[in-house]
């Protein structure tokens, strides 16, 4: 079973993402901000990481930068959840080492399509 780490400070988004992915047969771990995600990830492995950009404590960009320094996440697909207004955030995310992005708002089907794209 593919393991996914989903990071978002909004509980409803986290639930939606978590539920959708679990329903589709993924093993999902949730974290509420970058710091928590990093703490969880340090001693774990994931096949895909999905993270929001705007979060308290540690934002998504910083999280990607930190994850890429961990050996087990060197090549792991990391997707950012961005909004249409955040075009410069996409660039920042890419520069930090993000694999790609999912544009908000998205529906569960779109989420699964993108996940399938990176977790095969």
């Amino acid at each position, binding site marked *: 079973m593919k393991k996914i780490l989903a990071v978002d*400070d909004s*509980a409803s*988004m986290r639930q939606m993402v978590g*539920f959708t992915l679990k329903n589709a047969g993924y093993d999902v771990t949730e974290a509420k901000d970058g710091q928590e995600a990093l703490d969880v990830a340090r001693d774990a492995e994931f096949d895909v990481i999905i993270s929001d950009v*705007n979060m308290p404590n540690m934002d998504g960009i910083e999280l990607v930068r930190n994850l890429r320094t961990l050996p087990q996440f*060197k*090549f792991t697909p990391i997707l950012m959840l961005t909004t*249409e207004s955040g075009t410069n955030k996409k660039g920042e995310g890419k520069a930090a*080492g993000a694999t790609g992005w999912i544009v908000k708002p998205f529906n569960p089907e779109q989420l699964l399509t993108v996940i399938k794209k*990176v977790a095969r």
Partner: protein
Amino acid sequence: MSIDLSQFYEVFIDESFEGLETMESELLNLSPGDVDSEIINNIFRAAHSIKGGSGTFGFNAIANFTHVIETLLDEIRNGERELAANHVDLMLKSIDCLRNMLRSIQNNDEQESQEANTLRVQFEAILEQKNTTDDSNTSNSDAVATQPESNGVASKQTKIQITNFFEIKFNPESHVFKTGNEPLFIFEDLAEHGELSVEANIKGIPELDNLVADDCYLGWTINLDTTSDEETVKSVFEWVEDDAEIEIKLVAQFEDEIEVESELDEIEASKHEPSLTESSTSVDLASATPATTPESLPTDNSKQNDSATSDPVKAEFRPVQKASTDNKKEPTKQESSSIRVGTDKVDSLINMVGELVITQAMLNELGEDEQIDHAKLLALREGLAQLAHNTRDLQENVMRIRMLPISFVFSRFPRLVRDISQKLDKKVDLVLKGEGTELDKTVMEKISDPMVHLIRNSLDHGLETTPERLAAGKSEAGKVILNAYHQGGNIIIEIIDDGRGLNTEKIRSKAIENGLITEESVLSNQEINELIFKPGFSTADEVSDISGRGVGMDVVKRNINALNGTVEVVSEPNKGSTFTIRLPLTLAILDGQLVKVGNHIYIIPLVSIVESLQIDMSKVNSVGGGMDVLRLRDDYIPILRMHQLFNHPEACQKLQGGLLVVVESDNEKVGLLVDELLAQQQFVIKSLEENYKKVDGISGATILGSGSVSLIIDISSVVKMAGLKRAGHVGLDFDKPLSEAV
């Protein structure tokens, strides 16, 4: 797979309300001109989450509205715009408006909000101002970018199908793997669009000694025959376009005429597509002219959303006042049914249940033994003690789940004070203290309204106008302090102002006028001040918009009493007033003293017990009306015979040597005559009204360890039953006869 999104609505609504609260309190922390970027960030993040969630869960009215707020915040955050006072006002209004929109979703009658439209126009006006002076704002210019010309062939009976032959050179930079991208996946995606052949270019591979395993040295040449256009092909490379050289060349193109039947629907659908606000994964139609506008694709979504938000607002433009009357339609359901609990609290619960299971296993093992010797008996007792300990811990922790910091209530007051002080034209500094003090959620929800009333009162009647303050030698700005702290099993909330204090003369004359007291009544200042809590008392000479809403202090007092709490006032002329609310931490559990009266066991709330003593007959005096009083130090304590009140003829009737529990209620002490004092313990309160009916003198019931039901005594009601209190009279009714008797 379809997922019902409605299951996430409640969480979304809860967190949006929290987000709005954050926005509100942070906005109130802002002062125009001196902008703390961290505060702006917090506000932005909250707005951003609300927008993201509402878009995802299909609440487009909220998404569109928050979009303009977010845009403004983003500009302020990026230093492109100065924060102005009117921005703050507008955002505060928007927060109110969003709250109403969320509530209407809660009540399942989501509808167009006139107010939101009005406010949105104001935001757009602000955002426009910038655009005319500064054209560097790109988000709007995106909106006028290329429009898909997909329906050019709609009227024709046949359609031209175009097959494109692309040659793609794909040379990723060496670090491409470290972005988590996989060229193989890209090829697989391309293969979905048509016939694909891929050729690797291995020239770049270095000698083995120099080869870095993590790097990519390969390049590829890809040939693709597809009916998709260049933009679609390019979109496959979207995630790597900054990390690779990508060259897409249209080598050849064929046009075929094909049957139209099935195609027409698709074209019809495409005509409607731009009007949808929900962004769908772009339905790419083979366009007649393969446009080479590579940048336009990634912004496709923004285009749709922007055009949706900038939709001209309908002509029903109502003045703001009108819109605010719509607001008044407050929903009936105010108390939220769900609760959000910190994980640490849940963790400690789980931990405790674990302990409980261990204890249970231990007891179980002991119980299986046929014989119990002395050693086993000791072990059994130890196990039971452990069980008692665990149960108590568990109970306390479950209670803690319902506890929330009082900041949940306090946080709404800065806004209230700001609004009222603006209306009254008074300068007010609000100080919040002890915001972390925890309180039961139910109590919290019910204490909010009385507090609002008290604060309004302090601002309206307590604090003087600025000229008056200056004349009295006080600082220009009045001060209102909200303070919360724990004291024993209670939470104390104080509302302190440094205003003019209560006017005892005025209160007195008003009370005489209303027949609450007579001209001859001799009352201390404190007693006069307490009169403001009497029914039918209002000092405001004229009913003002702020405090005179027909709700008097008596209602405040009644509401607080209903929570087993009390409210008191202490006031000093020209120094100010302090209102003190005292509340039990929770409504569900009570520390009580078991007492025996005849064959029955009653419970007296421990908080109201002052002391228990054996009656010394030499200190008992009889006063009028068959009432006995006990002289206790400097007080005279009326003795209430519990067996009389609750009709237990079998109980001990004599005072001599009897036990007296001295209790206090509403600042009055009375003694309850009981037969026996039993244990003290915690009780879970069960409602008598729900299970039977309301009984005078009894506040509820509980079930004892023996399984029998025991009634909990309501002290203030018992005092009333005994006829000691008379409406409108401060102090106990026998005061006069007593002073004559002694």
